[in-house]
């Protein structure tokens, strides 16, 4: 998985490309840990994310919790495969999807 960061003042956009699974979820966790300082609004762009498992969902949920105390988190460009997983797990209701 490749994570690309784009920061505009207090807004951080993370673009995820590839597979977010047991082996790559720690990588996203690491990026979040090191980059969220001073960020009040987070956008996850999942256009190029082709796979997500519960390991990835847990990290996304962690970010959502952290950002909800601030200006929030938006998840955008979710494709069908990933949306299926959001749907069966109820994440579709929890997340702010765009």
């Amino acid at each position, binding site marked *: 998985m490749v994570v690309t960061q784009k920061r505009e003042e207090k807004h951080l956009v993370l673009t995820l490309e590839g597979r977010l*699974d*047991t*082996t790559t979820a720690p990588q996203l966790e690491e990026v979040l840990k090191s980059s969220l300082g001073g960020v009040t609004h987070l956008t996850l762009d999942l256009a190029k994310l082709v*796979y997500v*498992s*519960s*390991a990835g*969902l*847990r990290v996304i949920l962690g970010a959502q919790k952290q950002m909800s105390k601030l200006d929030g988190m938006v998840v955008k460009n979710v494709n069908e*495969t990933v949306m*299926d*997983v959001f749907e*069966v*797990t109820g994440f579709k209701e929890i997340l702010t999807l765009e």
Partner: protein
Amino acid sequence: MISVKHLSKVFGDTTVLKDVNAEIQRGEVISIIGPSGTGKSTFLRCLNLLERPTGGEVTIDGINLLDRKTDVYKLRQKMGMVFQSFNLFSHLMVVENIMLGPVNLLGSGRQEAFEDAMRLLATVGLAEKAYAYPDELSGGQKQRVAIARTLAMHPEIVLFDEPTSALDPTMVSEVLSVVRKLADEGMTMMVVTHEMKFARDVSTRVFFMDQGIIYEEGSPKQIFEEPKRERTRGFINKIRTYLFEIRSRTFDFYAMNSGIEEFGRKQMLTPKQINNIQLVTEELLMNQLLTKGGDAVDIDVNVGYAEESGEVALTLTYGGSLFNPLEGDGSDEDLSVLIVKRVARMSKWESDAGRNKLRVIL
């Protein structure tokens, strides 16, 4: 139409074909399957004399292939051949590639050859590419041009040697649907292939080759569902299931996933089916069996596909204490169990001689 009797082929001191016997009627579509290195290509190459048989007899429409007086060129024209590689001339336009044979070898007039080429290009769905050069085409399109080029010689039978093996998986189906269309039009064909769904759906008969002979032959139903002989059974079972053994917590997760993907593509599963197999496997292994299932790691992952029902079954057999990760009433469940339960159509756990056996239907 073709009669093969006691055909043999020896290269140096290796006997590749021992004793091949077959009768092929006009209009038949024969799929040839079998492990690699068993002489499938050699068999086809012997039929159109790209290799000279060592012994035996092949007659085509009553003409003896091995008779020195037989006109080899005339015979080859009756038998088109399509290979893994397309071998188009890159300095010629698509339509010129197709016209080349008829003009030079059949003595057709240019106008006639051109019209025929355009008609054939339409048949393979590439009329709009007539004036393109091969380098501007995808692999699947090149192979379709190669098929049109073969048909331009008006063959009576077409031999295909793994026509889709060199292609990117996304292009396999466009080529197979052209082959399928030819079959529907009544073309006599022999196809060496690894595409089992294709072999099953399109052929009138299947030859399973092994040990230098046609080891077993029959209808697709007989070969794929009720193979009689041991080696055929072994081959069919192997191609219909994917097995991955896990003996350590640090097993190669990537290798397992790409193995599932490759298996799924060969079986023509949809991307969604492949995704779901990977997802359910990952959730059960990483969040259940490898975290809770006791000490020694001893798990067999088996993915099987039943073509008849279109069902995919994931079977995990594992040692350690008896443990069904999908047990429970659904309250207070973690994400991984939730995903498996929602994605699976059905699941069943049992103790099989002291070993856990969890079967999930997707």
